[in-house]
């Protein structure tokens, strides 16, 4: 028997509204299945079950808004007998206290500091206690266990209270999303001393290669230039670790993996930056597949929780018919963001020859507490180099 709870999907999520049960009581569910959809400030997110068994005893009905950690349903595993039907208001079992449905709930993050390992028991205990995982300090061995959680509980600094969100209604609530973006960006701009470093990059070789490549690819296999930029950005980040990771508790933890957040605009406003995991290791076709999938799901309002929390840096591309440069704002706890302006044909002087080239201004926004402009310049150098040889990506 296990409890399926309202998950915490971000540092700024404290409550969620259940908008859909994708499985019914008695249905078999498998670990990894998305079984419910929850509306947050950021939109409707499908939530996964981490247990295999039978969905039993749904405790929160569609439309109900509940704090993070609330038991949504019970998953029956093994040969247990079905639970007696319970009413939604049934108090949680004493052994596993569910969080009180209080007007003010604590902000809880399921993101752990990059590089830190957290044990399953510690993660669950922290959620029960409404502790922000980002605020937990790992032991000397880099592990957050029950011991560290209990220690943090004693130190109240680990929790942060947030005002309760406004009442939700089904669908994507743009005002909620605006609020969430506002909160995150205000915090970022207030706390992070940004610096910006730009380069104009000759993207003619990239586009010429892409045109040749797409001419020989079948339509479903064609690549968008964003896929090349993403792959090149991920590789360049890998080469400049000081831009890739999380800064938590005044400590920067670089990440050995590059989970590149992709800023995707919602129609009607708003922005979500789910991650392509291990973007540096994917080939272009895979990057394209992931990108397609993310765009479709963002615009369809369906994201998975793990995609929302994993990013180690973010990539933002303004796109065609937009503006020349983008000076992006960092999404904490990340420490860098890469912004691409539109592709513009410019006069280009090289080796004393003047010609026209398609070019793009790429800007790195960096956290000055963690890195300096020189690091961003190094990144741009790598990126430029990579884009001159698109066939190698």
């Amino acid at each position, binding site marked *: 028997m296990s409890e399926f709870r309202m998950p915490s999907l971000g540092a700024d999520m404290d409550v969620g509204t259940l908008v859909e049960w994708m499985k019914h009581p008695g249905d078999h569910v498998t670990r990894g299945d998305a079984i419910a959809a929850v509306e947050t400030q950021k939109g409707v997110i499908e939530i996964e079950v981490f247990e295999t068994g039978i969905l039993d005893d749904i405790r929160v009905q569609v439309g109900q808004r509940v704090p993070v950690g609330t038991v949504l349903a019970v998953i029956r595993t093994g040969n247990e007998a079905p639970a007696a039907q319970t009413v939604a208001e049934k108090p949680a079992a004493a052994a596993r206290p569910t969080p009180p449905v209080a007007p003010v709930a604590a902000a809880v993050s399921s993101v752990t500091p990059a590089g830190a390992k957290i044990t399953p028991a510690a993660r669950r205990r922290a959620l029960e206690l409404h502790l922000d995982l980002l605020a937990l300090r790992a032991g000397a061995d880099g592990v957050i266990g029950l011991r560290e959680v209990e220690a943090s509980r004693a130190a109240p600094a680990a929790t942060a209270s947030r005002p309760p969100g406004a009442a939700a209604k089904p669908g994507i609530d743009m005002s909620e999303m605006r609020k969430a973006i506002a909160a995150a960006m205000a915090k970022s701009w207030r706390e992070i001393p940004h610096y910006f470093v730009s380069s104009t990059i000759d993207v003619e070789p990239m586009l010429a290669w892409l045109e040749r490549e797409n001419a020989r690819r*079948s339509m479903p296999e064609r690549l968008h230039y964003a896929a090349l930029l993403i792959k090149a950005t991920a590789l360049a980040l890998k080469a400049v670790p000081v831009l890739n990771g999380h800064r938590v508790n005044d400590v920067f933890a670089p990440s050995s993996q590059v989970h590149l957040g992709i800023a995707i605009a919602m129609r009607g406003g708003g922005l979500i930056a789910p991650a392509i995991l291990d973007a540096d290791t994917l080939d272009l076709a895979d990057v394209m597949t992931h990108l397609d999938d993310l765009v479709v799901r963002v615009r369809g309002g369906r994201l998975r929780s793990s995609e929302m929390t994993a990013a180690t840096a973010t990539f933002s591309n303004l796109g065609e018919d937009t503006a020349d440069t983008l000076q992006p704002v960092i999404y904490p706890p990340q420490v860098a963001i890469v912004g691409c302006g539109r592709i513009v044909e410019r006069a280009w002087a090289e080796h004393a020859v003047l010609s026209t080239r398609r070019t793009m201004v790429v800007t790195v926004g960096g956290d000055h507490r963690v890195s300096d402009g020189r690091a961003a310049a190094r990144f741009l150098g790598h990126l430029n180099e990579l884009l001159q040889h698109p066939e190698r990506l």
Partner: protein
Amino acid sequence: MNDADLERQVRAALYSVAPDLESEPLDPDRRYRDQFEFDSMDFLHFATELHRLTGIDIPESDYRRVETLKGAVAYLKEKRIAKGGGDA
């Protein structure tokens, strides 16, 4: 297959990419990206979906020709004739 059928196919491709557009008025002469928030990724999805629905291959160099509803219908018509395709 007449123009109305072709238009239905173009609209189907469009709405599969952006279901929220279904309730919006669509000007057949304006580029989608000028009427809606429709970026190049959306456009790529649209072109791919149109290919899937019609079987017609659209080279990148022809993308410009299917950027409006009217243009897309005309393009499909031309390609179908070129292919010698009937209503079979």
